[in-house]
């Protein structure tokens, strides 16, 4: 565990990319295969089965620390992380330990079916042996969520350096449905790819935001335009007679979208499509709002009624594999031509549709489309270079997203709550209200958009201006006005204000605006009428 703890510290302590990549590459060169495999797994969000419940872990932690449980529970929100809170309250370790990361994981797996009493003995023994970061990591192996400041991209880069393998190929290998309990380092990283898992998706190509207009993209004739849909980015894989649906977050969602099963009737085996999952009612001119898609995301299995209420269609915009051949190196225009042919004869009720390209000649045409995007229920335009390959990850140059300017409203902060992790003990999560006569009606929460300095300033203010506490939430004096930006607005019976916002965030702190100049419920309803 010590080698992994050193790696964790090196990554955690630094804000510099080169230091993190170097530390990872050094680790990948030196560690055992099984430890390397688990390291990749942990840093990409995979985890061992939970052997102990967090309830037990809290009780045992408080007991060993010799403090009452209520005191432990008071510490938790201050620290902002359960594994760390336990690691901090326990007395210093008495001995040391030489077990590796994977040996500890195996030991945890071995007690999975043991009695509570046996588990307790095991955990207490581990706490007595492990100190500092090692103890924290041990707790994290149980509680899950080993979040450390290293992206999949950085990890892949380090892995490429340590193994002298191609970065994009490694990115592809790390995608999909693998778990250290079911594979080996060799199978995952080194083996010839022929027997690869049929469900394995390709890494998504992600666009950067276009800050200036399309005028910068000369000559425009090199470019293609599409709507940027507001659904879930998804990859539909048809291989070996089966189908698989992956989200951009690398979640396998096949069972959540059963209507896509029929795709195998219309498209050949060995096809992989990149597109947007949208709720689109038969005959409707445009997709339904993101809100209607939300209940579909939350459910692992879908009741019939919901299937009828919110039918999902994949709107395909790219072709990544065709008749079993990886098409990603082909120019976009060519991939697109094949995709259009493949979709040309799809019946009207097929679960796959072609996402149209938008014809244009000038930048003015593109501006006109963008201005119309809200009416088309799109959130802007995608601009893709016709000769671009399909790259892995977020890359600049060939693909751009050109989003609509957000809607904005000036709102009053009325509740504040501390964040967790890096934001522990800092008030970063706020509830906002609009005015309604003398009353204030809460309508949204927002967490992001301010600088650390502004969060610190507001935190100090919140401490001095708390009217009432509800657990971790503080009601504060209505005073500060913030400009809230959001992408869309929908009627919602679940919210007191009657509306739900899409992607609300703080655009700026309006120190210049007194409370009386914040927007009203009437203003909010007017926006709902126009944009809802």
């Amino acid at each position, binding site marked *: 565990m010590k080698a992994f703890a050193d790696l964790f510290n090196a990554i955690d302590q630094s804000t510099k990319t080169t230091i993190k990549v170097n530390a990872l590459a050094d680790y990948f060169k030196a560690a055992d295969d099984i430890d390397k495999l688990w390291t990749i797994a942990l840093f990409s969000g995979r985890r061992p089965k939970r052997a102990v419940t967090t309830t037990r872990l809290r009780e045992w932690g408080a007991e060993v620390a010799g403090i009452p449980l209520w*005191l432990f529970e008071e510490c938790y929100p201050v620290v902002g992380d359960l594994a760390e809170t336990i690691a901090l*309250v326990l007395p*210093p370790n008495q001995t040391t330990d030489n077990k590796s990361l994977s040996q500890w994981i195996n030991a945890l797996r071995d007690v999975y079916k043991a009695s509570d009493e046996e588990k307790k003995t095991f955990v207490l023994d581990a706490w007595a042996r492990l100190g500092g970061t090692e103890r924290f990591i041990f707790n994290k192996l149980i509680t899950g969520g080993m979040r450390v400041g290293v992206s999949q991209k950085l990890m892949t880069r380090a892995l490429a350096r340590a193994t002298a393998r191609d970065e994009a190929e490694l990115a592809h290998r790390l995608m999909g449905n693998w778990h250290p309990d079911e594979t080996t380092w060799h199978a995952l990283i080194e083996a010839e790819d022929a027997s690869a898992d049929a469900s394995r998706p390709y890494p998504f190509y992600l666009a950067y935001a276009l800050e200036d207009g399309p005028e910068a993209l000369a000559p425009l004739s090199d470019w293609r335009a599409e709507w940027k849909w507001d659904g879930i980015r998804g990859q539909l894989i048809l291989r070996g007679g089966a189908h698989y649906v992956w989200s951009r977050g690398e979640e396998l969602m096949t069972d959540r979208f059963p209507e896509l099963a029929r795709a195998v009737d219309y498209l050949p085996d060995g096809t992989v499509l990149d597109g947007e999952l949208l709720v689109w009612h038969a005959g409707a001119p445009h997709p339904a709002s993101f809100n209607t898609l939300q209940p579909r995301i939350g459910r692992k299995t879908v009741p019939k009624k919901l299937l009828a209420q919110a039918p999902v269609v994949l709107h395909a915009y790219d072709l990544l594999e065709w008749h079993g051949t990886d098409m990603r190196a082909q120019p976009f225009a060519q991939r697109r031509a094949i995709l259009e042919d493949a979709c040309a004869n799809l019946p009207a009720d097929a679960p796959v549709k072609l996402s149209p390209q938008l014809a244009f000649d000038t930048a003015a045409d593109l501006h006109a489309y963008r201005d119309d995007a809200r009416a088309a229920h799109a959130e802007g335009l995608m601009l893709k270079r016709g000769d671009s390959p399909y790259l892995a990850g977020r890359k600049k140059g060939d693909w751009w997203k050109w989003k609509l300017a957000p809607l904005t409203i000036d709102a009053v902060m009325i509740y504040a709550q501390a964040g967790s992790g*890096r934001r522990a003990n800092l008030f970063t999560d706020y509830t906002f209200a609009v005015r309604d006569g003398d009353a204030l009606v809460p309508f949204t929460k927002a967490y992001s958009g301010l600088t650390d300095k502004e969060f610190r300033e507001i*935190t*100090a203010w919140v401490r001095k201006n708390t009217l009432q506490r509800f657990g971790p939430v503080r009601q504060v004096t209505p005073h500060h006005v913030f400009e809230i930006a959001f992408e869309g607005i929908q009627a919602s019976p679940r919210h007191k204000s009657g509306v739900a916002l899409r992607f609300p965030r703080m655009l700026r702190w309006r120190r210049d605006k007194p409370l009386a100049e914040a927007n009203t419920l009437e203003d909010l309803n007017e926006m709902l009428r126009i944009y809802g």
Partner: protein
Amino acid sequence: MTRTPVLTFTPEGIYCPAGDFYIDPWRRVARALITHGHADHSRWGMGSYLATHDALPVMRHRLGDISAQGIAYGEQRVIGGATVSFHPAGHVPGSAQIRVEVDGEVWVASGDYKVIDDGLSPPFEPVRCHHFITESTFGLPVFRWEAQDIVARQINDWWRSCAAAGKTAVLGAYSLGKAQRLMTMLDPAQGPILCHTAIENTNAVMRAQGIALPDTVLANKEVSAKTHPGAIVIAPPSALGSVWAKKFGPQESGFASGWMAMRGVRRRRAGDRGFVISDHADWAGLLWAIKQTEAENIYVTHGYTDIFARYLNDNGWSAQVVPTQFEGESMDAKEDTTDAA
């Protein structure tokens, strides 16, 4: 029969009716007894000041021309109907707990304190009393300080690895107390110790009063990474990452504070490295100090007051929370001149 308490808590600060004086007052009053020179305890504008001989030079340096008297640790002085004396608090050089006795009843206002010997400040001495006023800046069981020599080794190792990589180590620390404590922990054989003006000024005051500090160099215009390769720079936290710090070339930044015990704060505040070291008592230190006083009545101020007081009440003390103008709870609002966490 109820009698007037020896010390009361007023909007001006802690007040002693029998002696008509205040301890660490927040507002302008005629007579102030000061525990130590940090800005949230020693404020400008009092009619007269009384503090330890060791605390006075820094107070005069910070507050300018004040009417102040010095007192030795342990020396008794009668003020009106009260007998007062000052006892080491171990927080920073010159810091004191103030003992107030009226008609045989003893109260101690401890100001800020830590219970381990930092080698620089006179170590904390428990004072038996009936009523004890304690801070609780780190009054949660998640705070547990490691021995000073362990932290010293961590800092020296970091400094050495920076120097080996051709980088300057820039260490953020509060300019009164923490900065000087860190200097004494550094190994001067490793390289030059450079100090920001705010810190070097305080160094000069302390040296003049006979406190032994290692040799340091004022990081003025002529001083840079070129003139002093392999150096460590000690600067107020606000100077980390500033334009001023740029002249030290390739560098790593560190921050030394008790708050660095928490990973979230470390990632937010520490730059490259966070070192866990504080001039306040940790959880065990607070409880030890309270037991040593043998006081039954505890007044908790600054920090995790509600939680700490509840714990004391559950464990046989009679504890209450005292409101303060300064919320010691914060780990972000405080900057250089207020308090040394």
